[in-house]
Structure formats: C-alpha cells, structure tokens
C-alpha cells in the first residue's frame, strides 16, 4: 500500500515537474510572439564636432633686399597659430638668391661668394599682435575682416656659407576673403651680423611680400 502511494506520489511529482518544464519551454517559445514590445532604448544624441580654425598655413612671394647684394625675389611658407583674437605665433621659412655686390660688378672678375654661398634661406619664429583689427568695405554689400599686425621674432639665416642668428620685426596686413582664405601684405626687417667684408657689421635686410593663407 505504502509503495503504491509512494509510486502515485512520485508519478504526480514527475507529472508536475514535467508540465512545469514544458510550461517554461512554452513560455520561452511564447516570448517572440509578444505583441507589444516596450522599447526603452533611446537614440544617443550625436553632437557634431565644432570646426576649430586656429591655424593658418600659406605661401608668400616678394622682394628681399640683401644688404650689399642687391634685391632678389624671395619665396616662403608660413604657419601661424592664433592663441586669441589678439595674439598669434608664426613660424616661417623663406629662400632667395643673392645678386652681386657693386664691388664685384665694377671690378669685373672678383667673386666674393660662390654660387652656393649666394643661396640665402631663413627660418624664424615670431609673435604677432593684431593691433588694428577691423572691417574693410567693398561696395555697399560686402564687408571683409582685416587686421593690421605687428610682428617680431628670432631665427636663423643661412647666407654666405654660415648660419647667422637673425632678429626680425615688421608689420603686416591680413585681409580675410572668406571663412578659410586670407591674403597678406607683409613688410619685415631681417637683422643679422655679417663679417664677410672684413669687420663685423649688423645688416638690415628688408623684405616686402604678399601671400595667401588658409585657415584650418
């Protein structure tokens, strides 16, 4: 009798367990058939990056008067970083080929420098101050941002076979055509010591240039 009840009980237990398992299995298979599916996922708000334009890169051409060696064409490249609306730093590199001195031309055959030594190149790092920022009006419907800046810095000039420590100072005018393009007019004095003609002297080398730059 006891065994019979035991069997019955066991059987009942098995049935319950089996039906429970089936139930869960069915419940599982039911999930995809759920009609309303709560969607709690929120689309992340994508913040577009702001285009920051503090760098200015460009090229320039002009005339460089090399003391005692006449005036030559100069070409160069510049990279500037604007710290604030007032201040910027600029690195530039330029090159020119010196002409001949009056002495060389008058004497006929004397050559003070070889052709390679006549190649002048300079680099400098300068600080600029936008002393007169403003707007320029072209006609009645157009206004352009401009700035007159003062600039001074230090660098090195390779000329007549040597590197020469060079100070530069000058001023320039920046005319901003649109969001990314600007034109420059620049006047700069490159000052270095030179001992080529016997005694050491300070030479002033004036440069006038015009150039284009891109803001990025």
């Amino acid at each position, binding site marked *: 009798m006891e065994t019979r009840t035991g069997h019955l009980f066991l059987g009942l237990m098995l049935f319950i367990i089996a039906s429970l398992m089936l139930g869960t299995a069915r419940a599982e298979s039911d999930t995809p058939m759920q009609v309303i599916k709560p969607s709690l996922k929120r689309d992340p*708000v994508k913040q577009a990056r*702001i285009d920051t334009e503090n760098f200015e890169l460009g*090229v320039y051409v002009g005339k460089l008067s090399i003391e005692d060696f006449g005036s030559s064409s100069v070409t160069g490249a510049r990279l500037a970083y604007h710290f604030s609306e007032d201040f910027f730093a600029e690195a530039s590199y330029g090159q020119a080929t010196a002409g001949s001195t009056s002495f060389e031309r008058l004497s006929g055959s004397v050559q003070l420098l070889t052709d390679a030594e006549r190649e002048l190149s300079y680099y400098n790092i300068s600080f600029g101050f936008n002393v007169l*920022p403003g707007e320029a009006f072209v006609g009645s419907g157009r206004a352009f941002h401009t700035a007159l800046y003062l600039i001074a810095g230090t660098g090195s000039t390779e000329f007549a076979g*040597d590197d020469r420590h060079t100070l530069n100072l000058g001023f320039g005018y920046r005319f901003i055509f649109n969001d*990314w393009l600007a034109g420059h007019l620049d006047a700069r004095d490159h000052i270095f010591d030179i001992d080529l003609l016997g005694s050491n002297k300070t030479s002033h080398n004036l440069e006038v240039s015009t150039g284009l730059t891109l803001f*990025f």
Partner: protein
Amino acid sequence: MPFIYLIILLSLCTGFAQAEDSYRKVQIAEPYIELHTGPGRGYPVFHVIDRGEWIEIHKRRTDWFKLVSANGTTGWTHQEELEQTLNPEGKQTRFEAIDQDQFSQRKTEVGVLSGDMDGAQTMTLYGAYRFTRNLSTELSFMQAVGNYSDNLITNFNLLNQPFPDWRISPYLALGMGNIKTTPRATLVLSKDRSDLLAHVGIGAYGYISSRFALRAEYNRYVVFSSDDDNEDIKEWKLGLVTFF
C-alpha cells in the same frame, strides 16, 4: 620649390571641399545672446537671438563662434555667451576648457626657446613626453650660432618636476647628447667636429593661460672633446611651451 608649396595648398583645398555638413545645434537658455559681425570684441553687434531659439555652430576661431540662427542670420559670438546654452538632451553645453589642471596633467608638450650659450645665440625646438606628473623625457634640437662656429646640439633629457601643481613649477634636468661644431666659413684651417656632451640644468615652467606656458632654463654643459681638456659651457634660455 614654389611648386611644392602650390601642391601642398591644393591638397589642403580638396580637404576643405569635403567639409562636413552637419553642425552642432544648441538652444539659447539666457534671455538673449548678441551676434557680432566678426570674431573680435570690437566688431559691432548687429543682431540678437532670443531665449528658446535653436542655433547652429558652424565654426570656432579662438574664443569666437560663428553661428547661424533659425532664420539664417550669420554672426559671431563669444564662448562666454554660449556657455549657458542647452544641447538637444537639455543639458548645459560644455566647451573644452583648458586651464592649469590640464597643464599639470599634460602628457606631451612641444616648445621653442631662445637664449645664449657662452656668447652664441641659441634656438631650441623640443618635444617631451611625461611618464608621471613628476617625471618626463624630452628630445631637443638646438642651434647655437657663435662668432667662430655654428653648433647643432641634439639632447636627450630627463626632467623632474617636484611640484607639478604650482603655477610656477620648478624642475631639475639631466641630459646627454651630441654637439656638431662647424667653424665659420671665414675661418681657415679648421674642420667640423662632433663630440659627446652632458648637462645638468635647473629651470621653471610658468603657466600663462589656455594651452601655453613659459619656460626658463639654465644649463651647465660638459663637452667631452677630442682635445685634452673638457669644455665647460653655460647656457640660459627662455621660451614658450604648448601642450596636448
């Protein structure tokens, strides 16, 4: 050479042509903001945008932002005015603020310095990497132009900054490198030399603002020259540092 510049310029231009069209949108939360005609304090205010309006931020130049309002008006406004705006999630807009904390936690820095090395004018360019807040390594290139020679010095330095959080933070430096000496072209009977050199230095950083700091340094070099005597050189320099 001009052709190279031209190619660089042209390749940059194509980069510009592919500029993105989507701009960041923010909502004005203050009573109004003012639009200037240009990115500077002196440019006149010509328009105001009221609270609740959505604006697009197109560009940033230094601390000035170029905005386009819902009705298409374009103008410039200062960062201060935009700090009270809300983003599409309703939170206050945050702009990257660079301050002294960022400076004391910087990982990399680059700088240029100018100075004097026993009468020769120097120009130095260097890059540094900081392992910890106190310890950094750097690689520097220095050109020293003197009356008799032109020197190019490459240095590998180790810096220890005991107080990185101070606005004016002193440091100690140790370094080794190479000095290449080229005598002046006007001197005869001399030839190029390359020697090993080592130095100890003391200096300080002074944080200015934004991404910039000043750096001043005094160094004593020993050049292990091929002559019998080692040379002892003193150098000081001052320059500007930027960090990332």
